[in-house]
């Protein structure tokens, strides 16, 4: 199955960058999930939690504001603040 290239970038550093199966993120107009081969899509983000799924592993990040860009070469979140949730 095709994979989705996802990267989560905060101003100070890149927190995550890898091939994954699915990413859920909190958009300003509602939460959304992104699977591989998603149509190009851009949105601003609100405060919330980003869920990254790859196989059976799940990683969670708390972000505050930012911006999501789903393009042909993957999914990028530019967060204003981001920390990995325990």
């Amino acid at each position: 199955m095709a994979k989705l290239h996802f990267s989560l970038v905060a101003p100070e550093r890149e927190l995550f960058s890898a091939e994954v199966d699915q990413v859920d993120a909190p958009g300003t107009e509602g939460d959304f999930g992104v699977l591989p081969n998603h149509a190009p899509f851009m949105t601003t983000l609100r405060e919330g939690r980003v869920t990254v799924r790859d196989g059976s592993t799940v990683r969670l990040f708390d972000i505050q504001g930012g911006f999501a860009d789903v393009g042909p070469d993957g999914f990028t979140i530019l967060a204003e603040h981001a920390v990995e949730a325990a």
Partner: protein
Amino acid sequence: MASLKEMRNRISSVKATQKITKAMQMVAAAKLRRSQDAAEAARPYARRLASVIANLAAGVSGDGAPALLAGTGREDRHLIVVAAADRGLAGGFTSSIVRAARERIDTLVREGKDVKIVCVGKKATAQLRRLYSDRIVENFDLSAYRQFTLSVAQPIADLVTKLYEAGDVDVVTLFYSRFKSVVQQIPTALQLIPATVEGGAPAEGASAVYEYEPSEEAILETLLPRNLTVQILSALLDNMAGFYASQMTAMDNATRNAGDMIKRYTLEYNRSRQAQITKELIEIISGAEAV
């Protein structure tokens, strides 16, 4: 001719200075590595943001474009933000930035433009105040911050945006030192407002099929102020790395100079010590002969 005691004192004082410059060099080297990493870690964000904005800006042009991107349509009033170091002892680091800024300021003034200045960093303020005290609107002292984060750059960006939105300035340019390598930092002018969009329109037609939430304009509207802050932050991070690189080089030179001085003084000291011994010997021998 200085007495032997004076020369001994001089040698030991140069030695003490050398110890200090050596220590500063090593501290700067350690901090350089850390700040270089920080500057590098911040790049992906700035680069992505710039490319997204370039993408969006290609789609949004003309009347719908936000003021930060489009500008006021005039360029009579300039705001120059000069970002340099908060501390000294770093060779010509601050001077080279200030010199670049001064050239621009003088050119603009000659052209009859209105120029305002914002200083970032204590040393920049000190150098610019002497020349343009009436043009400086604000100065920032960042010496209290050990690490630069977005919250450090935010007040600067806020001030710039405020001045722009109040209609006091048309063009905002940031002067800082781009960190190219440890031996090369280039004083650079970066135009913040109107935002410069790099690379023209990448991926022709790509923006047409994009879906936007909320609208393209609304996204651009939130991204541009953030881009401003991020640009200032990366300039500050570059500055910090450049500052330590420059300090390291300056202190390395100082240490070497001190070494040369010590060698010269020691030679001189030994020579006059031997001269004195010889003189004393001659006195003793001629005294013994006289008996």
